[in-house]
């Protein structure tokens, strides 16, 4: 069975507020699903239902085919979970805490010491083993939480903002670790750092106000913006009209926008039809007509913009 995580139509309300309104997803072994959405969109609530902390009002969560509702204890054995904020028992030392988790995970003998030391290595927390968790920095606390989640080498790993509070080096390391672990595991990573989606995730689900807005890949997310694959050209103002006229003869172009016009330079944004890749066509026109330009580049759509567009109405551009 490859579908390690199957969430089906999960719903949860708190009083009158619908936090999660029918979210479904499946994550297979080897996949890393980026679970994104604005704060308060229902990410954490969904993860709490997936891990059995919250009982959904409707819908089911299955972990490797085991129903969280019917057999919570068995299902929870298969999950490693890092809750939001990486809560731990602050009065314990790191090693004391890991020993407690090893007890709960029923690890014993040689396997126990092996898995504990592997978790310590992977999370890079060797230097804080005898420190009280309360006295650790935010980054170390997060990594202690991570080591707890991965210790028993679970089939399903659910991480709620695992890189929050880490410095760029630590972030890089955690992403590498997640990628490494994902080979035999189904992983869900919630984040609001979109570079993470590009860096590690094989799929992405974007939710807003408790609803799935997009379920696909980072590429799909980008394509939701009209200026996806757009081409930026920089040239002198006297060549502007000529250039515009020539480019508009191309059938793959929807429109041309003029940005940042100064005395010496003007920037053109050439927008494609239906996200077509137009750089070759545009370059050919420029070369054939020997248009004097000073710069040309494909517009790098930032995921942030796509995110904002799909979760607010701030950026209204679309080609759909």
């Amino acid at each position: 069975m490859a579908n390690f995580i199957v969430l089906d139509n999960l719903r949860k309300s708190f009083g009158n507020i619908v936090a999660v309104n029918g979210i479904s997803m499946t994550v297979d072994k080897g996949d890393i699903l980026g679970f994104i959405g604005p704060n308060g969109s229902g990410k954490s609530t969904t993860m709490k239902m997936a891990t059995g902390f919250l009982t959904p009002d409707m819908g089911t969560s299955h972990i490797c085919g085991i129903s969280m509702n019917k057999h919570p204890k068995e299902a929870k054995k298969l999950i490693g979970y890092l809750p939001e904020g990486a809560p731990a028992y602050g009065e314990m030392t790191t090693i004391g805490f890991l020993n407690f988790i090893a007890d709960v995970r029923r690890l014993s003998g040689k396997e126990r010491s092996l898995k504990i030391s592997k978790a310590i290595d992977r999370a890079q927390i060797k230097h804080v083993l005898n420190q009280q968790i309360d006295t650790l920095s935010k980054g170390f606390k997060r990594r202690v939480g991570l080591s707890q989640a991965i210790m028993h080498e679970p089939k399903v790993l659910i991480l709620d903002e695992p890189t929050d509070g880490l410095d760029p080096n630590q972030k890089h390391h955690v992403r590498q670790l997640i990628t490494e672990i994902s080979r035999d595991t189904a992983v869900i990573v919630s984040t609001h750092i979109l570079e993470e989606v590009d860096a590690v995730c094989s799929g992405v689900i974007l939710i807003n106000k408790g609803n799935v807005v997009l379920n696909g890949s980072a590429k799909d997310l980008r394509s939701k913006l009209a200026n996806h694959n757009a081409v930026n050209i920089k040239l002198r103002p006297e060549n502007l009209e000529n250039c515009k006229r020539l480019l508009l003869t191309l059938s793959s172009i929807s429109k041309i926008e003029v940005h940042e016009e100064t005395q010496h330079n003007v920037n053109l944004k050439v927008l494609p039809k239906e996200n077509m890749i137009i750089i070759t066509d545009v370059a050919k026109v420029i070369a054939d007509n020997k248009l004097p330009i000073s710069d040309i580049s494909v517009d790098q759509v930032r995921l942030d913009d796509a995110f904002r567009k799909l979760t607010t109405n701030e950026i209204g551009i679309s080609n759909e």
Partner: protein
Amino acid sequence: MNNIVIIAKREAKAYFSTPLAYIFISIFCGLTAAFTFYLGAFIERGQADLAPFFESHPWLLVLLVPSISMRLWAEERKTGSIELLMTLPITSLEAVIGKFIAAWLMIAVALILTFPIWVTINILGNPDNGVVISSYLGSWLLAGQFLAIGSALSAMTKNQVIAFVVSTAACFVFVMSGLETVTQALEGWMPSYILLAVDTMSSLDYFEEFTKGIIDARAIVFYITTIVFWLFINVVVINLKKAK
């Protein structure tokens, strides 16, 4: 190792790795001694028994047990560690019992460490040691009842101060309900079955049986059932409120 044992072990370690256990035990021993010697006139009354010592217990426990129980669940909810605990393969019931046992054992340690007074009375005279043992048992059961009440109430809030105040008040009610002044005040305007209920729910009456050296099955059943009842409430409250 059983989940209950794992939880109890972790909790017990937490008590003794922080000043909590040491402060609790010192204050309990100190206050019982103060009550016995100053208020109870232990020496002056010239009797070889521990009555003044045990008489102070219900009142001290009303104050001190909620100071232990207040953190049991309120702290877990406040720090969010409850989310970790409840997503491990551990049931709410196992967690509730494990935490309860650890706290109850710590109180047992505090009771045991009052042994110098028992040694003293044995040096000074010939007390009935059976009475002493049954009194200790009564004291421990009473503490268990207060602890179960406090644990359930602690699960209802994230605020430890609220948990403490409400638990103290609740335990106080259980002690007071047996006093004559309370039953007299209710007499006449309350239906008789309520009077009877209030009177039989009195933790103090059952405790006094133990201090007379009587280990009555009814008393043990009373304490055990109230403990089970409040721990059951505790589990229900955890399941309802854990995520709020």
